[in-house]
């Protein structure tokens, strides 16, 4: 199973490349379904000892590559497969529709499956060089996807994205070199045990974290994101915002909590939190000011990423024992819920906005008025996804923000409260900005292009998933705790399975 979740998307990508053009959509969808199914089997069918561990070709560490899954991997794998599968269902008819025919590139499926395979492999890989290679694979595939729309603006955004992504991974690679020079091992577990506070180690820590911050587009390193996400075709924007950003965030979690738990400091965590806070405010502020729909949604991604980074200051334990453990868990639940629900909600939002742009033929915010209630399902999807982003109950976003607020209060770091609340308020601002236009009287009668039902339904299903996450929190907590197994929680955090 462990190998299959990587092999199926990769071979699917190759098969799609060899297929005649008409068949690629079906082949791609079949590969997507198979990948999704395998991930579910891996996660929910109890297996033997080796279920979550595999040494490729029988070569273990240090020479070979080992795949290893823990609670965090499973969460990210499930998140990816559900979102990715629904996006795939959307992508089929989207690239077949007449308006997209000109720009539709049949390479979508190849690139998308490569990207998906890279994500799956990243979530189960256990050494940092392998992770570097997979991050590069993910970035290259993601940039190639943004160029599918062959407009000059999209190309320029793509090149800027490529430069930022390359810069991020090269800085990360330099950090890997420093670590290898210091300790001579590359696997996460081995590094976590050996790491000491020396100058090269701290340098490596700084470089690796910085590299991943560029890729995650944390304020003020978000300069490349809005253009790249805003100019891509709708399913690609959804993939980039919902999944690709999360991969480098996952890397940050691994780096922070698994390799360097002994040298992370209170100040460094506060710095990340502060950058996250600025991201929340700046991103939402910019989103409110946008006049183009997709740019609005892209800026909203910048702000929602900010919430993810509140996890870092909130998990630095000053009080040990019972109390420390409980707030640690709250912060973790909040951060991971935010990751998962943002992925589903943002994908739904991008797809719904894609439907509206498809119907109207323009993505100016003001032309939303001309819909005149003719696209009820897509507008409803925007509403539900908006509820999630704002954090109203019973959505996953509500659980995330509630848990973060709880963690803030029990850790005594009160200064994050106004940020979280103000961020939600601004989010409400731009969501109602979109919805407000829909319900305003129309300016002129526009002939709407018909939207295939599959497009509307898959977007709506994603929005429902985001709500549903609010009810699965206990599952997420179980998975997180399963990973916390090997060590007492507050002091040192390790996710390895026994």
């Amino acid at each position, binding site marked *: 199973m462990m190998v299959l979740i990587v092999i199926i998307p990769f071979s699917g990508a190759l098969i799609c490349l060899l297929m005649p053009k008409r068949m690629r959509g079906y082949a791609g969808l079949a590969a997507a379904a198979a990948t999704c199914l395998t991930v579910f089997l891996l996660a929910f069918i109890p297996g033997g000892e080796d279920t979550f561990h595999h040494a490729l070709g029988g070569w273990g560490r*240090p*020479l070979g590559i080992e795949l290893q899954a823990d609670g965090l991997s499973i969460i990210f794998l499930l998140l990816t497969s559900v979102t990715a599968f629904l996006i795939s269902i959307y992508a089929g008819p989207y690239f077949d529709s007449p308006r997209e025919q000109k720009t539709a590139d049949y390479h979508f499926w190849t690139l998308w499956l490569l990207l998906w395979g890279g994500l799956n492999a990243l979530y189960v890989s256990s050494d940092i*060089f392998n992770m*570097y*290679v997979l991050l*590069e694979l993910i970035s*290259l595939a993601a*940039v*190639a996807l943004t*160029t599918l729309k*062959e407009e*000059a603006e999209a*190309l*320029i955004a*793509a*090149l*800027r994205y*490529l*430069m930022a992504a*390359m*810069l991020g991974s*090269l800085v990360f*690679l*330099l950090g890997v*070199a*420093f670590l*290898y*020079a210091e300790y*001579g091992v*590359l696997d996460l577990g081995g590094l976590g045990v050996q790491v000491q506070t020396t100058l090269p180690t701290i340098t490596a820590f700084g470089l690796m974290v910085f590299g991943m911050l560029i890729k995650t587009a944390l304020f003020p390193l978000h300069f490349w994101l809005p253009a790249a996400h805003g100019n891509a075709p709708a399913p690609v924007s959804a993939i980039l915002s919902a999944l690709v950003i999360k991969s480098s965030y996952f890397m940050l979690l691994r780096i922070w909590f698994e390799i360097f738990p002994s040298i992370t400091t209170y100040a460094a965590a506060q710095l990340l939190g502060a950058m996250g806070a600025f991201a929340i405010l700046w991103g939402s502020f910019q989103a409110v000011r946008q006049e183009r729909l997709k740019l609005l949604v892209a800026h909203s991604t910048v702000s929602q990423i900010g919430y993810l980074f509140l996890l870092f200051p909130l998990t630095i334990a000053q009080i040990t024992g019972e109390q420390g453990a409980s707030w640690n868990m709250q912060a973790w639940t909040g951060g991971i819920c935010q990751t998962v629900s943002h992925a589903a909600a943002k994908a739904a939002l991008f797809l719904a906005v894609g439907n509206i742009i498809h119907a109207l033929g323009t993505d100016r915010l003001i032309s939303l008025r001309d819909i005149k209630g003719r696209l009820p399902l897509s507008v409803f999807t925007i509403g539900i996804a908006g509820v999630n982003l704002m954090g109203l109950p019973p959505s996953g976003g509500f659980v995330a923000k509630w848990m973060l607020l709880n963690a803030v209060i029990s850790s005594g770091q009160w200064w994050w409260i106004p940020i979280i609340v103000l961020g939600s308020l601004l989010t409400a601002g731009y969501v109602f900005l979109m919805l407000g236009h829909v319900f305003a009287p129309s300016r002129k009668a526009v002939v709407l292009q018909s939207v295939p039902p599959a497009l509307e339904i898959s977007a709506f299903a994603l929005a429902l998933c985001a709500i549903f996450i609010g009810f699965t929190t206990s599952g997420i907590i179980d998975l997180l705790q399963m990973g916390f197994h090997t060590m007492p929680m507050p002091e040192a955090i390790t996710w390895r399975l026994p």
Partner: protein
Amino acid sequence: MTELDSFLLYALTAVILFALGLSSLLSRRHLLRKIMGLNIMSAGAFLLFISVAHRNGKVFADPVPQAMVITGIVVSISATGFALALARRIRKKTGLTSLDYREEPSPENHNRP
């Protein structure tokens, strides 16, 4: 020169190369120079790996960093090729040789090979 000194020399060179590439990436406007900057950065990282391999080896050099550098070179080549293709297409479409929107494409810029 002792073993440690030569390692330090190589490592310092590697870091300086990396910094040079970074400065070129950040300060130059022309796309080719930016892409070359990225290449020089990766060369710096590779040199660091290789010098570690030399230092760790007793009888022969440590094979693991060399394997990593080979992989890294493959990644770097494909990324460079992709970036060059993108830059070429951007110039074909808009006449721009930088990522700056405000810059008007000048005719001689456009005709330059």
